[in-house]
């Protein structure tokens, strides 16, 4: 079988996904085009028509992110117009799913090279603006025991015994690591500044990392999902129907130990061996395996565990064969569940911090953490890494990469 390699990976800074965020002024299509141009330029791809397709993760596909943003991004960019584009939505793992699809197309012989990645401007196209039957259609909402993600994260905490303090400690550490990683320049290799049309810099830093985040500070925050759980409209009752062994849901998550709303884009250049040879590029890693899975939609966010078991099984590996992990920090309990289930050493897990500190631009994050993983593997001379994300409506996605 043809191997799929990662030739490069870049990302924008993760901007605060609010009206006062640094990237709020930048359209989602420009953010996308910036990283498409960025990765093509950095790798001196003179003839971009060799790119078979742009596979672009994006969750809220309405407004400026609607009408196949992927194709719009290609047309906005300097890529050859013969490069098509397809938007994909696997919620929070869209960016990783785009990479996995590209890798599997390469492995299957459908084209030599792809740019995969994704974008989300959550400040400009707010989450949920695309509606969605699962929460609204009564038949489906009841059949699936729908509860919002925040409630799901609290179900995980309750069911597996993660206290508010454990979640807060996790969040404090995420910030500490992100601060240290930034200071040490760990993000400099892949993170590219966003500039305006005149070449003036708009943003270069992950602006949400807070130095000095501590337990006292987090302790003062009110739980975010208590009211919707216990009062209006009472999602806890639905959660308990699915998890009747629980007496009540402990609402431990808040703005400080959950991933922040964020803006950003990321791109990964994927190709076969011939592509690298033809363009004088050296592969940075081999995409060893990809996996996705469906899980219970109510607890929703436990997918990283079964999808990791699946990907390990299909590669004949065990958890100790993995040197480094990136598990998206959607909520503290998601990572704590992964860590305790596999008994993974915290020193191998999200070593540069994660979405709790930096933010989670939905469609881009999967591609971003894969790039962060690869950078760290190179920096620390590790062989094998695994990236995984929990996904809305109960799914999980994972990718294992190996340095070559």
């Amino acid at each position, binding site marked *: 079988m043809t191997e799929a390699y990662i030739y490069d990976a870049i990302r924008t800074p993760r901007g605060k996904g609010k009206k006062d965020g640094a990237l709020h002024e930048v359209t989602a299509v420009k953010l996308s085009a910036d990283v498409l141009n960025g990765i093509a330029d950095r790798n001196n791809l003179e003839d971009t028509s060799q790119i078979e397709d742009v596979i672009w993760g994006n969750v809220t596909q309405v407004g400026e992110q609607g009408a196949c943003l992927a194709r719009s991004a290609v047309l906005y960019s300097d890529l050859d117009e013969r490069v098509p584009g397809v938007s994909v939505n696997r919620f929070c793992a869209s960016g990783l799913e785009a990479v996995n699809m590209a890798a599997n197309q390469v492995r299957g012989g459908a084209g030599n090279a792809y740019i995969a990645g994704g974008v989300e401007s959550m400040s400009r196209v707010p989450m*949920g603006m695309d*509606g969605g039957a699962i*929460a*609204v*259609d*009564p*038949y489906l*909402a*009841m059949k699936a*025991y*729908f*509860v919002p993600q925040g409630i799901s994260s609290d179900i995980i905490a309750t069911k597996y015994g993660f206290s508010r303090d454990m979640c807060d400690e996790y969040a404090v550490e995420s910030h500490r690591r992100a601060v240290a990683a930034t200071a040490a320049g760990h993000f400099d290799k892949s993170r590219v500044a966003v500039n305006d049309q005149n070449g003036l810099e708009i943003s270069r830093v992950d602006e949400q990392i807070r130095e000095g985040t501590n337990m006292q500070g987090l302790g003062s925050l009110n739980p975010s999902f208590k009211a919707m759980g216990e009062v*209006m*409209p*009472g*999602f*806890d*009752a*639905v959660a*308990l*129907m699915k998890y*009747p*062994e*629980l*007496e*009540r849901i402990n609402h431990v998550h808040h703005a400080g130990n959950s991933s922040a709303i964020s803006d950003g884009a990321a791109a990964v250049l994927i190709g076969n061996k011939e592509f690298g040879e033809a363009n004088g590029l050296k592969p940075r890693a081999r995409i060893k395996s990809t996996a996705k899975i469906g899980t219970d939609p109510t607890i929703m966010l436990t997918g990283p565990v079964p999808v990791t078991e699946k990907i390990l099984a299909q590669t004949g590996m065990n958890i100790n064969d993995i040197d480094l992990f990136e598990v998206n920090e959607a909520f503290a309990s998601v990572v704590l569940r992964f860590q305790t289930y596999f008994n993974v050493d915290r020193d191998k897990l999200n070593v540069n911090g994660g979405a709790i500190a930096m933010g989670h631009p939905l469609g881009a994050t999967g591609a971003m953490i894969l790039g962060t993983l690869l950078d760290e593997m190179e920096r620390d001379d590790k062989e094998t890494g695994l990236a995984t994300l929990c996904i809305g409506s109960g799914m999980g996605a994972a990718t294992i990469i190996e340095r070559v």
Partner: protein
Amino acid sequence: MADFQYDVDADGIATITWDVPNKSMNVLNIEASQELEALVDKVLADDAVKGAVITSGKADFAGGMDLNVIAKMKEMAGDNPAKGLFDGIMGFHQMTRKIERAGMDAKTNKGGKPIAAALPGTALGIGFEIPLACHRIFAADNPKAKIGLPEILVGIFPGAGGTTRISRKLDMMTGSPVLMNGKLSDPQAAKRLGLIDEVVPADELLSSAKEWVKNATDADIVKPWDQKGFKMPGGAPYHPAGFMNYVGASAMIHGKTQGVYPAARAMLSAIYEGAQVPFDTAIKIEARWFTNVLMNPSSSAMIKTIFTNKTALEKGAVRPEGVADMSVKKVGVMGAGMMGAGIAFVSAKVGIDVVLVDRDQEACDRGLASVTDILDQGIKRKKVTEEKKAEILSHINATPDYDALKGCDLIVEAVFEDPAIKATVTKAVEEQLEPSAIFATNTSTLPITELAKASRDDTRFIGIHFFSPVHKMNLVEIIKGANTGPEAVAKALDFVRQIKKTPIVVNDERFFYANRCILPYVNEGITMLAEGVEPALIENAAKLLGMPLGPLQLADEVSIDLSVKIVKATQAALGDDYKGTNAEEILFKLFDEDRMGRKNGAGFYAYDEKGKRTGIWEGLRENWPVSDEQPDLAQVQHRLAMQQVLEAVRSFEDGVLEDIREGDVGAILGWGFMPWSGGPFSWLDIIGADKAVEICDDLTEKFGERFTTPALLRELSKNGETFYGRFGPEAKADAA
């Protein structure tokens, strides 16, 4: 004979008067719907007629649909009952839509004839859905009238356009009590809610409606939803304003119904899907979901038990034949405690004279004070007026003087649950009574046959078991002693009918029927606790069955000391035959630690200082550790359900229950048994005897002989029969 009269006045306004012959209340069936449609056609076709008023020839407008129609519709399309139902429902839609569109041009909305509804009184179900199709609804200012759509309460939903029209008339917050809770309103409240348009004095009802018809313009008769640019009030599902309402509604309905009531779910789907399409498509969607609900065995079971059979029992289905009316004129209530006061209240409320007797005036006054309390609560909630309170109290003579009992035709004795005290009271009271009087004892545990021994005439002695609190609980269990005669039974039934409650008649056996079935449920829950089952799982599993209270919470409500007393009494009564259970150790331990349940703020649950439950008592998990291996939900549910259901089957097998309808109605009204199932016998019919036997055999193997499959159930399984197929009223009628 026609159900509707038709005449046209000098102004050219037709009056369509609904007046079903030989019935006190109008109900709609298929033929009547067609008849009404034909009259609407006549109005529309006759150039001399300007418009019409639809009204009633009775005190009320209509009580709803004749529920036999459902069975009829199911047969209308041969072996495809869903098609029969769908087509039948669409027939109702065609009729109401004809009223609503009234001949107007589809594009211009012009040229229609105004049709008003004039409601003299109550208008329920389809009896309100027809007015909803009219262009203006007038109601007489009749505070006794009830207006609304109570379908959800019997397991269906408003399926003749009511769901679609209300969800287009009112935003979800306003409409939800009407549709989701079946809330009924008097005319003034209905107008405030926006359900009807005008409330007028009764003698001006028809003239007001006609006056409106006379002056109505084209614009007056076009419904908002038939106009261009109509927007759903409160926002459609994917409109930013409506989005959260729909998300919230699903969650709320799901949590509240615990997923076991198909009608609420289907109605919400009809609203959601209907909100996104034009009206005519929306009613088709409504009809599809309504068909779906009517095809669901839970709905048929609920209608059968909560409507048909409950009504039949209230109307005397099991009353002994040939006994003349035994209505109570003067009742003596012995004992002015909580039960006695409650019984006095419900009797006085319907105008029966009550003598409320206790050992001294102070005790009598306390009883009277509790009656006053109930009435004052009613006044606070605007359900009772000061005049009504005075009138009710005037019927009660609270006195320690036994002489006052002279002339009572019924005694309800509700003194302390002690056979010796009861015997003394029985003898003393009977000295005051005519020989024809009936003596009833209100007991929940003592055998009637034994108590009857104190009576001078055990044929006129009977048990009447009220549930607490008397003014809220609608079931009354009538218990026949070994020698109780038909007149005593008739008397008890007539009394229960007078006080507007629902009776079941059972034979005398330990704990009668309701308590006999509920005690094993509580025990099973506590037994599981002893086995190491997580207490939350026990409680939640019960709620997911549709039980109002989990077994542990129920134990707290009943009180631990009462449970311990019952265990000890049962031990004493059964002697060597008594089989101990794991549950007892826990009950005794709680008792020893003075955790008596809700009443002293400590039991299986912990309570705060205001008496509010704060959670399962932590000590439970400390004393009876939760196992690492937990049973699956279905097994916990089977155990909790079967302990009640098997006891019901055994009650029927050993003759305590004589009629399965009473078993089902009694279970739902008496202890809130899984109402969606239609009761224990209906539930067994839904899952089928084969499946029931399989469950019981499995549970017997795992948990012991309390789950032993009753011979009758095994027989039904072998013969491929159902309870209602073999023992239902139709089967009985066929046999007779």
